[in-house]
């Protein structure tokens, strides 16, 4: 089976983002950028499938600015076979990303596409489902387990009430959740080797996809701040405050 893994360059999960004072977005200059954490998990899963002999080829693809190649290098260092960069400004919307990925699927004919369940910058949680719809393929979203079968994959989804499992005939789409696996840290020799590997490049125009945004970003603001609280010195004081000041318990 061939696996395609779309990866996104995002502000690192442990950076506290700052909103630009002109309200045009969040500050990304001189900020640590990383592969979307969910996509790392997707890459890890794909590489494990290949190590197990289930997958024959793993291809990573990113849509983004030139610097997004750094994230492809990470994917290569983790063990993907090929990397594709489709150049575009940052901020391509999920619908357009899904259309681009669908065009990539036309070329690559993957059996399985593993995406992150959400990008931690836009928090959209849309792209995988949209790609599945465009291709008419089955989807398993927010998965914490994946078992390959004969022409199928069985996935366990994390849902609001617990877990649910689905059997998906391939080609199929799955979006991964945090508990699927623990991604590896690439070893230094692999990082060095990844630097020399070719990256296949194209543009959204090459693929014939219109990426004009549908949403106009009017402004970006800081969330309302919480007023600072107090420290209490004992359990009794805590209960007193909750009863008599905040009046949230009896």
């Amino acid at each position, binding site marked *: 089976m061939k696996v395609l893994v779309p990866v996104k360059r995002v*502000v690192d999960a*442990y950076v*506290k*983002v700052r*909103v630009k004072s002109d309200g045009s977005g*969040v500050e990304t200059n001189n900020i640590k950028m990383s592969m979307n954490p969910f996509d790392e998990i997707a890459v890890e899963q794909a590489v494990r499938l290949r190590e197990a002999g289930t997958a024959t080829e793993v291809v990573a693809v990113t849509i983004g600015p030139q610097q997004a190649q750094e994230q492809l290098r990470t994917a290569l260092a983790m063990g993907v076979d090929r990397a594709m960069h489709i150049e575009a400004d940052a901020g391509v*919307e*999920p*619908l357009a990303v*899904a259309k681009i990925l669908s065009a990539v699927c036309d070329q690559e004919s993957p059996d399985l596409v593993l995406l992150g369940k959400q990008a*931690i*910058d*836009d*928090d*959209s*949680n*849309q792209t*995988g*489902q949209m*790609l599945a*719809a465009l291709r*008419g393929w*089955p*989807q*398993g*979203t927010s998965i914490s387990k994946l078992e390959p079968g004969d022409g199928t994959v*069985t996935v366990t989804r*994390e*849902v*609001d*009430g*617990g*877990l*649910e*499992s689905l*059997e*998906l005939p391939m080609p199929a789409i799955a979006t991964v959740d*945090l508990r699927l696996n623990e991604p590896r840290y690439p070893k230094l020799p692999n990082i060095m080797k990844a630097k020399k590997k070719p990256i296949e490049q194209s543009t959204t125009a090459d693929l014939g996809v219109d990426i004009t945004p*549908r*949403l*106009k*970003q*009017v*402004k*970006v*603001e*800081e*969330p309302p701040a*919480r007023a600072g*609280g*107090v*420290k*209490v010195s004992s*359990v*009794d004081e*805590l209960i007193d405050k*909750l009863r008599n000041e*905040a009046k*949230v*318990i009896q």
Partner: protein
Amino acid sequence: MSAILVYAEHDHTELKSGTLSAIACAREIGGDIDILITGNNCGDAAQHAASIEGVRKVLLAEGEHLENHVAENVAPIIERLAGDYDYVLAAATTGGKNIMPRVAAKLDVQQVSDISKVISEDTFVRPIYAGNAMATVQSTDAIKLITVRATSFEAVEAGGGSASVESIESGSDAGLARFVGADLSESEGPELTTAPIVVSGGRGVGSAENFQLIESLAGKLDAAVGASRAAVDAGYVPNDYQVGQTGKVVAPDLYVAVGISGAIQHMAGMKESRVIVAINKDSEAPIFEAADYGLVADLFEALPELDKALDG
């Protein structure tokens, strides 16, 4: 006047609270509100929807292939109806998140996810970067597909309405995803996303056995139990207890965080709570910056003491 379709989630008898919040959001947008119910033997849920004031009609699609809300079977129904509406709304639950983008792509619409505020007929606010920034976005699509952050809209109550229930064409099994089974956790206490009080435990709790301490306090306060990702990853509690950017969003009157450090991703799911209490032995833990009342203490001493004090 615009027409709004709300895709409902239900337990066969009643609409889920996230859907009741999506209906509240629909009221804010303003227009004729229809509710779509899909499932198998869910006439009671349809009656519940019909009893909500301001609902114009309830559309009911039933069939075995809809029992488990498999996206591949539900999305085509919404897609077929969407042409008659200006808006299609659903709660930003795992159900809504699963189905709605599938509809959006088919309709060539850029969905607006997880909105927390309605500014005007086409402009909405939504959190981005785990709620560290709020984006105001204007949709240019003819049909607006929206998922709604339940904690930002107060659930509507049933009663006062008498809409008609109309059975509609339910399609057939798409033959794509096959539902294998579910492993739903049974918690006895109140539901996490709607409980007025939530007590959550983190890595500091140390083990599944020690989580008894959290459950006991929750029991005394008639609270729901939540957890940080670290506590779920360590296997102390099931996945559906997770509060945060990638778990559940809660906004109770009182949120008690015990042995939780207060990572950005955890705060994303609870910082809209009215009153936040933190119990942590590290006085520098970031959770104290969000807490209205912070108690620097070892939880293994503080929780039994709290338990006792609440008894007395």
